[in-house]
């Protein structure tokens, strides 16, 4: 999977989980940018990400994640 393909899938997940079809994400997107993205929804978002990409993150990595760019890098690292 390329970075672009991951973004494509990830955008879908964001739109579903936050029920907002206008969401666009990029490397710099953080929870500040999406109103519904609070700590509760973060749980559901991460569940969906891990299940969809069939990856399991390490707890430390997730805690260090600063933005969507980090998330995509993490997904790609785990998949390879």
């Amino acid at each position, binding site marked *: 999977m390329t970075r672009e393909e991951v973004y494509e899938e990830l955008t879908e*997940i964001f739109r579903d989980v936050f029920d907002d079809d206008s969401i666009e994400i990029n490397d710099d997107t953080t929870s500040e940018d999406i109103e519904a993205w609070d700590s509760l929804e973060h749980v559901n978002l991460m569940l969906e990400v891990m299940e969809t990409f069939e990856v399991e993150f390490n707890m430390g990595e997730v805690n260090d994640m600063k933005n969507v760019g980090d998330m995509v890098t993490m997904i790609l690292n785990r998949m390879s």
Partner: protein
Amino acid sequence: MIKDLEYPFDGREIIKNKRKLKKALLESNENLLEKRIAVLGGSTTRNICLMMELFLLNNGIKPVFYESEYNQYYQEGLFPSQELVEFKPEIIYICTTNKNIEKYPGIADRAAEVEDILSNEYAKYESIWISLKEKFGCEIIQNNFEMPYYRVMGNMEASDIHGTINFLTRLNMKFYEYSQKTTGFHICDINFISADFGLRQWHKPYDYHMYKYAMNVAAIPDLAFNVANIIKSIYGKNKKGFVLDLDNTLWGGVVGDDGVEGIKIGPEESQGQAYSEFQTYLKKHKDMGLLLNIASKNDEENAIAGLKHPYSVLTSEDFLVIKANWNPKDDNIINIANEINILPESLVFVDDNPAERHLVKENIKNISAPEIDEVQNYIRTIDHNGYFEMTSLSEDDMKRNQMYKENVARDSLKNSFTDYGDYLKSLEMVGEFGAFDPMYISRIAQLTNKSNQFNLTTKRCSVEEIENISQDDRYITVSGKLIDRFGDNGIVTVVMGEQENDICHIRLWLMSCRVLKRDMEQATMDYLVKSCLARGVKELRGYYYPTAKNSMVKDFYEDMGFEMVSENDAGDKVYKLTIDESYEKKNHYIKVV
């Protein structure tokens, strides 16, 4: 009803689509019953509430939640916060898990020490239940404990007194003992739910350490579904019976084509065995007081012949109404519902043919038609839907089939009379009226939650509320039993009046539809008037609040001689009637004792 929320559902999809689902549910449901539910958690509960909300909305209940702060179940249980007190919960759900066990036995502890640890752990919970019951008098739902995901001693964890599994099992048993002696206290069996989900998946240390969820987030829909089932059962939103297809549903093959000897049922081969198991499963429902009926595209004689198969577990006698004809199934279901006087939506339609299921679901709103596939899976698909979740089992429940049968006998007697009065006389009816008796409290509460049609105010009450009202001097309470030559109908009518000086406000008046047109409401009125006069009441006030289901009684108070005082935009009506010693009895056919 949204199919995505019925078993088999995909928990992950539900979590992902919860906002869309909630929107759809709020748009499609009217007449939602609002309930205040406090969730006291031993771990994170946010997702549990969100999932419960979806499943409850799908059953016509709109929950309002109070959530305790993280892991505050014990503090809130013993010393409820001001916020919880003001919230006035109708249901409290104590969502604890084995993560909340404070102390397990140590490997070197002596038996007496192990007993102490067990008693201490149990005492913590019992003190919460007693405190909550005393402070709120509401229904309590308590999780039991799920089994752990590792076993230090291996298999001996189950049998040795130091074993975690042994300890949790004994603690669970103590919870059940409390439950058996306490009304309004329900166990949510997460021990089963976690095993059913798969213990390996249920426990997800990642979700616990990251988010403090005591179970895999993906398992939460399964848990919430079960809690919602308990709540819907408490409020009488259970299904009442089955309408079953025959060919390839109760037996393998087509009796009209294959003949009785050709259908598959019984121990001789694998498919037959599976159908027998399914019939046995249905028979257990009948024993529990649920109603079995048949809607089958067959000639009646073939249908009956099939049920006479020597290996058939169910016989014609087990069914209330058998419709074996070539009419559309939705028509047959409506007719069955009419004959036994229940709402079509309270039936579960079981048919192997997806086209029939589709037709029935399209034409009968809110009826359930589980998506069964192969016979070996029928039981699981139906059972996991929790249509008949039990929260109490009254004697009347177990006699219900008998009572409906007697009703069918009464109907055939009715047809032999030309004068309805003669028919009523021939029934030799005896009515027994009285104030709420402790013996009948659970049946009375059950009736307030189940009766929809002959129900003037549709006021729902828990066992606790009925108990309180029965001891409250301001209330004039009436419950009535009806007995006739065919049998005892049990408690069939309930009235609750609140006295204010010389006025009695009738807060609730309901009657079971199975005694409709028997003069029972007239006899009840006579009794109510007598009780009121004895307490110096001079005026009765009646209230009618329309719902989607109670139009049957829209003119009830007028028929009883009341005069309408007011009506608001919602159609709520207020009536009054002045009463004195000159009141003339309205009932002519029931002997009141």
